[in-house]
Structure formats: C-alpha cells, structure tokens
C-alpha cells in the first residue's frame, strides 16, 4: 500500500566533500519534526553521510557532479530518504553491497551500504552504469 506523503524537502548540491556534513545536518533537521530519539537521529545522519559520500567518491571520481537528495515524511512516522546522482553507476550492485568490498582504496572501509542497511532497516539500490545511481532508504521513527 502506498503511504501518504505528509511533508517533503528536495535539494540538489555539488558533489564536494564539504557537502557531506551539510546533507546529513539538513536530514537531521527534517527528521526532527518526528521527535526522534538521539539514537534514531544519529542513525539517519550516519546513513545519509554514507550515501552522500558514496556519490562524492564513486559516482563522480574525477569531476564535480550534482547530487539530489529527497526527504519525505510518510504517514505512520516513517521517513523516506533518496540520494541520487547522474554519475558513473555501479556495474555489480550485489558485489558493491558486500561488507568490506570497496573500489575506493585504503581510505574507504567498504562498509557504507552495510551501515545504511543496518541503521535504516530498508535499503534499495538502483543503478545504470554510465547513467547514475539511486539509493532509497526508509526508517520508522519513534512511537506512533
């Protein structure tokens, strides 16, 4: 069943690493209307940070592209977050989602998707090589 959207915020920003902090702070501010616990707020910030970092590092490895983030508040206290890019795309999504697998070198841990999934509960990754990637996460917050 499709859930009713109660509030929404869309933003797009260049894939500069300084925007990782900006994106997660905005997501935290948006989620605050649900009166989340500190831990829930931290989960959302971390998941958004991972998704945006992936786009900065992997989608646009040698140029600055555009990242689009959409935040939706759904009925029943659920938050829906989408992070999209029009970058390089992922050839093998199952492999990319494998814990500790990374193409990012020694300064990346390969734990991004694993953390997004375990902190949010729901994660869907769609990608077309050469066209871009869309990451969708959902989490139910607080008590109804």
């Amino acid at each position, binding site marked *: 069943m499709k859930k009713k959207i109660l509030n929404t915020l869309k933003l797009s920003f260049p894939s500069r*690493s*300084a925007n*990782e*902090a900006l994106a*997660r702070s905005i997501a935290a501010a948006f989620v605050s209307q649900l009166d989340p616990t500190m*831990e829930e707020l*931290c989960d959302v*910030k*971390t998941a958004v*940070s*991972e998704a945006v*970092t992936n786009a*900065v*590092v992997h989608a646009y490895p040698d140029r600055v592209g555009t990242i689009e983030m959409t935040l939706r508040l759904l009925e029943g206290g659920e938050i829906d977050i989408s992070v999209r890019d029009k970058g390089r795309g992922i050839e093998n999504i199952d492999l990319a989602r494998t*814990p*500790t697998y990374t193409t990012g070198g*020694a*300064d*990346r*841990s390969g*734990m*991004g998707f*694993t*953390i997004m999934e*375990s902190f949010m509960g729901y994660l869907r990754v769609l990608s077309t090589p050469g066209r871009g990637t869309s990451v969708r996460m959902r989490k139910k917050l607080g008590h109804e």
Partner: protein
Amino acid sequence: MRVEYKTNHRGTEVVLWGELDHHAARTALAEIHAWLDQTMPMHLTLNMARLSFMDSSGIALVLSLYKRMAALGGILEITDLPPFARRILKAAGVEKLVSIPA
C-alpha cells in the same frame, strides 16, 4: 574536525574533536601520519571522547593507524569511545584487531 596531540603516561595520545566523516578524515589522517613520522611512538592512544559524529570513514582511519603502529611493533589503543562510534567500529569487526573499551 580538529586533532589534538598530547603525551600521557603510556606514550602519546591523539584526541579527535568534532565530526569524523570522509571530508574530515582525509586531512586528519594525513596530519596524524605526518606527526607519527616525527614522534615514532610505541604506544598510541586514540581518544574519541570529543567526537560528535562518526561514519564509516572512522573505520578506515582506525585501520590505517592500526596498520601503521603494528608495522613498527607498536600498540594502538582506543579510549573513550562514544556509543555511536562503537556501533560503527563493531559493524566492521574492528574489535578483533584493536581492543576497544567496554
């Protein structure tokens, strides 16, 4: 994010202040390695008490410092780990390599 360097009774201590993400980790890690090049401590304490945020970039930072200390026959110790940082490190099984406080 800011990095503070101290000496304690066991050797040297690095205190991480603020938000540890991909943006901050790149500069911080290069800076810490440069500092280790100069001081060559046998015992390094990584104090995380002052962190207000950490994502998976923290895993790569810890592993990088662990490898560096192990290569020199030294020890890396993590102290004052906030709950959010503990969850991240445990997700990656870092406690199998580096002892993290209970």
